[in-house]
């Protein structure tokens, strides 16, 4: 456990040394403030468009941070040859994977916390309404979505040749699932056999990341998500993260490092 935590702390330190987060945060803040200053029919209570744009920027920023940070972890260790002393500590390959995953996930958690704090302040000052529990549910689900994405990216970093190709592929998969995941079942049912069975199997097997995208509920001030559903979604995310981490371990276990 100590080895995993030590590795995780190194990853967290890497985040605050690099400029990715700062750039994305400043950009998000700047765009949100700029759009918030637009005069729309002399009405300063209009807020939902601002919430929508701010949340979109937060989602894009967090996905970029999660995917880019994770994708370079193992390839960088191999390229710099620091993986050999790391494994000679002795730290097992499973611990390296878990350490990298925990570090990236905690890093994203910290970034999310700051982003959502900013979002809460922007929305609260305009709306004079503070639905803390809704924000907590949204942040929590967002964080667990990033756990799945990070586990997928770790697996990708062991399969694909370069971090850039891995990042691009994972980004396309994640955006694809977020946009189409909910509707793939409907599409499958309209197809003839055997396409129907193939697409429907894919629909059942893929990680439904759209469960964790509750932006619409936040933007339109909808009620809280049922706590049982929130808990089940967390378990769902845990299961998929574990599954991808296990696959990554299988790929990493006997991989030649030189």
């Amino acid at each position, binding site marked *: 456990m100590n080895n995993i935590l030590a590795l995780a702390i190194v990853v967290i330190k890497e985040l605050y040394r690099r400029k990715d987060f700062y750039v994305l945060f400043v950009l998000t803040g700047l765009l949100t403030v700029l759009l918030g200053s637009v005069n729309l029919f002399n009405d300063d209570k209009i807020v939902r468009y601002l919430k929508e744009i701010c949340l979109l920027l937060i989602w894009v920023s967090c996905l970029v941070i999660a995917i880019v940070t994770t994708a370079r972890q193992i390839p960088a260790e191999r390229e710099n040859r620091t993986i050999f002393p790391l494994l000679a500590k002795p730290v097992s390959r499973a611990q390296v994977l878990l350490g990298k995953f925990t570090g990236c996930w905690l890093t994203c958690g910290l970034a999310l916390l700051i982003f959502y704090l900013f979002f809460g302040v922007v929305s609260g000052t305009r709306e004079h309404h503070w639905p803390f529990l809704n924000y907590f549910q949204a942040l929590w689900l967002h964080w667990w979505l990033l756990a799945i994405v990070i586990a997928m990216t770790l697996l990708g970093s062991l399969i694909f040749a370069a971090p850039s190709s891995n990042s691009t592929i994972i980004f396309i998969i994640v955006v694809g699932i977020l946009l189409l995941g909910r509707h793939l079942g409907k599409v499958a049912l309209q197809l003839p056999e055997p396409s129907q069975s193939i697409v429907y199997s894919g629909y059942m097997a893929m990680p439904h990341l759209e469960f*964790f995208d509750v932006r619409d509920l936040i933007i339109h001030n909808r009620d809280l998500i049922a706590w049982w559903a929130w808990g089940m979604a967390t378990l769902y995310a845990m299961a998929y993260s574990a599954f991808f981490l296990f696959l990554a371990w299988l790929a990493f276990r006997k991989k030649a490092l030189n």
Partner: protein
Amino acid sequence: MPSSYLLLSLLFVASFSLATLLQPLYQSWEGSRTSSTGVINVLFGDSRRMFANHFFVEADIYFHNGYYPSIFDQGKLHESSPMAQTIESGGKHEHDSPRHDDHEKERKSDFMGQPKDWIDRFGRNFYASEHTHLEKNGDEREILPWLRLSAELDPKRVESYTVAAYWLRNRLGKVKEAEQFLREGLRANPQSYEILFELGRVAFENRKDSQTARNLLELALRRWREQQEGNSEPDILLHQRIIGHLVEVEEQAGNWDAAKKYLEELKTYSPAPQEIQKQIDEITQKNTLPSTPQPAPARDDK
């Protein structure tokens, strides 16, 4: 050394002279990026109309608090749900129009149907799956940014102006802003009878200025005739509403003959001509009764 300073001065003077020559040409050039519409045109080109449509639909999504059919639900929707009629009618939710009945049907409609599997059932906990509307505390204001954006991207899209003006005027009490936005729309669409009609309503219902209202409504009627008469499917609903308002204006001013003339025209299009005839009879009765007629304001035919 002095020769290099001379050369530098010469280059500076040449640049300055060229700038004074080119600046007016650049300002008058149609491709100039100095105006906001120029920037939008350069960035989006003709695709801005597609985006304008997208943002107009976004306003409707906001009106339904995020409960809205996706592109994958549209096929089913067109077969059964009255919500499609609302979308096609430009998202107008007027409670004084027949569309209100559609809206009541729409409330009862459910484009989602029964969940198809456990993923569908479970997933409904995480997005807007209950049909509600923005109808309290002036929340309707939330649709306005998208309508404004839609109008910016496609100034020829008349619905953006009329729908925004409706909500601004009727629900948010922002008559001045509604009128200003409609005037912007009229500048971009000088032939639009829809915008003229809305401006007429602003003048009549909010400003209580019958004279201006009459002029605007008559102009709207003239534009309607120019554009719609002879069409295989004329916009009958708006024609009826223009005439209905003109009748109100004339009745208020005591111009019974003019009111009767409009009612006669309305009768030819109305699905209930007996009701219109009853109204005509009432006016004829009023007209024959000995009374002090209200002074009719001077007619200003534009």
